[in-house]
């Protein structure tokens, strides 16, 4: 497992290590007495659910946060990292989950921005080409960033790190925005970096990936270290159980059930982009029957939020008949009128879109229920009815909270998501459109939500799920369509379609067999 790398030092002396490190924010302990070490030539996975403390730990390793207790060791010697510059000077590089690139600058200009002032701009393209060739990244220094796909943007971030020749590279959820093919290309680059004797810390919750790539895995739960293991000796289920602390129930499909009539039909929906670098929807057509789950896959930023806004009525369509709910053309109707046709909607962003963070849970019941359910009368809100309904959602979906009717912001991500999904499901909608149903949600809550969606579907509702999580889509969808630069593919049956086929569509290359993940982002 532990190879002697070219990075120097004894193989048993970790390049970078933390010993007994603790980070507290006020009364909250984000990291509690954590110890781990990265040896040269190893890919080390950091596993854990959202809120387990992974980000806090790597921020300390990169000098963005100072530990409350414990020490950071560099080749065995204790060090202090007052800021990221100090970390970079030692040879620690980090690739963040969210890119920090300027869309209107070129690749070279973006990279030059973070180079030391002694570097000259005209030398940068040559260096980029060198790195790009060495690691097979295919970067063109003079392309403007806005014309690049997510995978290409990520490679800029990685090249930016590699130009500083780091000994340790930290990657935070690097595949969350990539197609399977782009991810495979990333793994090849990472394998090459590992072979050069660098140490990689790889944060992910995609367990298959971790098994494919990593030599060791350290698992965090609620800020504590719960174990270190060899991921190749584990199954995804056993890894998940370590992360969550208990076995996760398996989502149970309703089995063969009869499909009803079309409940949602979208035909030739065009919607111009509301902003300069936004995405226009182009001739989107789809149909969802009662009793069916249609999944929409796609890399983030390919028109998912625009599609959701058009389906919900937050944006209106040019032609009323381009969106039909249960036979009624609704393209020109607002969201309240679509709800009146017994449609329910759950947007991607919990805090601030699906729920008002500074409003109580019962007030948030009124947000989507004010047109029905006896929640309002003559312009007055029936506070008792809202509290009743809120209690029903809380009970049915096991929403954990403190206080009788707390502010939405005080709930954890998973619990608030259960609340906003449950709020719609208890209204027994005939059609539910949901965007990223389990994004950033803990595994138990995610399983609860997926099961509830399947149960709703089994009761005859049509469910449309927009998700970036292919595992999720394959788990619960009957058919999967892919959105790419605002165009929607044909829906393929989930059984009998491979991840690779969906991946090609996500990269905008229908029908190609050669998986390169490259250049598919035609603008």
């Amino acid at each position: 497992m532990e190879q002697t790398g070219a990075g120097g030092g004894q193989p048993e002396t970790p390049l970078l290590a933390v010993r007994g490190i603790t980070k507290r924010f006020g009364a909250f302990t984000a990291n509690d007495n954590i110890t781990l070490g990265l040896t040269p030539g190893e890919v080390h996975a950091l596993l854990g659910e959202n809120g387990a403390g992974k980000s806090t730990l790597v921020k300390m390793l990169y000098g963005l946060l100072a530990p409350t207790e414990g020490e950071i060791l560099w080749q065995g010697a204790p060090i202090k990292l007052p800021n990221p510059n100090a970390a970079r000077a030692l040879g620690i590089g980090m690739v963040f989950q969210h890119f920090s690139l300027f869309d209107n600058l070129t690749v070279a200009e973006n990279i030059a921005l973070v180079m030391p002032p002694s570097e000259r701009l005209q030398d940068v393209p040559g260096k980029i080409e060198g790195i790009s060739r060495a690691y097979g990244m295919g970067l063109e220094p003079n392309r403007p960033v806005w014309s690049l796909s997510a995978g290409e943007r990520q490679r800029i971030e990685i090249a930016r790190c590699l130009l500083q020749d780091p000994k340790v590279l930290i990657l935070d959820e690097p595949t969350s925005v990539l197609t399977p093919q782009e991810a495979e290309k990333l793994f090849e680059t990472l394998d090459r970096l590992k072979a050069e004797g660098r140490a990689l810390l790889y944060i992910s919750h995609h367990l298959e990936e971790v098994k494919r790539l990593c030599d060791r895995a350290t698992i965090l739960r609620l800020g504590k270290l719960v174990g270190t293991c060899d991921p190749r000796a584990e199954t995804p289920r056993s890894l998940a159980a370590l992360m969550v602390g208990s076995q996760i129930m398996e989502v149970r499909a309703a089995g063969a059930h009869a499909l009803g009539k079309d409940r949602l039909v979208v035909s030739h929906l065009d919607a111009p982009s509301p902003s300069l670098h936004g995405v226009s929807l182009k001739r989107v057509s789809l149909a969802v029957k009662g009793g069916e789950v249609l999944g929409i896959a796609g890399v983030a930023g390919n028109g998912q939020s625009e599609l959701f806004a058009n389906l919900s009525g937050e944006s209106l369509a040019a032609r009323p008949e381009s969106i039909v709910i249960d036979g009624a053309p609704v393209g020109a109707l607002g969201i309240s009128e679509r709800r009146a046709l017994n449609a329910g909607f759950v947007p991607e962003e919990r805090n601030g879109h699906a729920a008002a963070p500074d409003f109580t849970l019962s007030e948030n019941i009124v947000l989507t229920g004010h047109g029905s359910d006896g929640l309002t009368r003559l312009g007055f809100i029936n506070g008792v009815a809202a509290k009743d309904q809120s209690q029903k959602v809380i009970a049915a979906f096991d929403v954990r909270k403190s206080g009788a009717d707390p502010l939405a912001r005080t709930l954890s991500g998973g619990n608030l998501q259960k609340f906003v999904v449950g709020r719609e499901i208890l209204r027994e909608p005939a059609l539910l459109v949901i965007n990223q149903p389990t994004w950033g949600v803990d595994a138990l809550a995610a399983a609860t939500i997926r099961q509830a969606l399947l149960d709703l579907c089994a009761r005859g509702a049509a469910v449309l799920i927009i998700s970036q999580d292919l595992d999720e889509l394959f788990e619960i969808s009957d058919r999967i369509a892919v959105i790419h630069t605002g165009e929607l593919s044909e829906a393929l049956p989930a059984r009998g379609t491979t991840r690779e086929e969906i991946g090609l569509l996500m990269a905008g290359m229908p029908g190609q067999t050669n998986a390169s993940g490259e250049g598919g982002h035609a603008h």
Partner: protein
Amino acid sequence: MRIDLDARPQRSALREILAPVGALIVAILIGGIVIALMGRSTIEAFDVYFVEPLSQSYSLQAIAVKASPLILIAVGLAFCYRANLWNIGAEGQFIAGGALGGWLGLLTYGGAYQGALGGWWILAAMMILGALGGLLYAMIPALLRVWLNVSEILTSLMLVYVAQLGLDWLVRGPWKDPGGHNLPVSVNLDPEATLPILFDGGSLHLGVLLAPIVVAIAAVVFSKTLFGYQVRLVGSAPKAARFGGFNDRTIAIAAFAISGGLAGLAGVVEVSGRIGQLLPSISPGYGFSAIIVAFLGRLSPVGIFIAGLVLALTFVGGEDAQIALHLPGDLTLAFQGVLLICVLAADVLARYSLRFTWGARS
């Protein structure tokens, strides 16, 4: 040294109520220091500003008369500010309402238009016109904001000066009292156009009763109605409001209408109740002081009621201090400014804790 603001994990109701009280105490301390630096006795000034006005019947009445326009305007502003709309032109809307309502008083001067109906309708019509004047004046920034996305902060503020100069011109020109020795004043309004005094020999007039009524209605609107819910929602989470199916443009226009209408009503009450005629200037800055009242009262109607009384006290005390101690009248405005800064600072401290980090960042 560096100061970081850390969000407090939990909101505390007690802390949020104590914040404005603490701000008031700090502002009074700062005021005391300023007066001491001016070479006057701080104790004496405190007595004149805050104790004497509360111990005399006539000054208690004066406080109520000054508090009622502040409260009316500030309740209206609460609708705007809760909806995240920054109407700072209530002073102009106050003047527009006072002028339009007062215009009816001038039109019916000397018993004109009373005819068979009598004069009972004049006061009611003046109140309605006053509210309408303020409302229409507030529609200018509201519609510019909704249609063209023009900053309502700039437009509403600049329209204050338009209103001030407009009234000034009217009173020096078309509305000047022909028998007024060429002074820039209108005629004195008829009794039918004047709000009656509640107690003989006092200064409390009927208009004062509007303040508690409006406060009670606003409190119910904010806490119990779907409209109040929408106003709060649009300000607090605009994306969630659109998701809820609420139209933020309608809410923006409604909030400005309420705000302008209440400021206009306050304006006509001032003209008809306290002044009794139109003058080049009919407000000692109520529209601006009401901003302080709104924040001191935490944008809640009941809080605004209390805060309005506190600010009125500084107006009355400030007038007394001019006479008794020869302190400049601008000191009152300066004190109100200090108070607003203290309130805003206290708001931050109620939600965040300060953390001092010593030593330089390397």
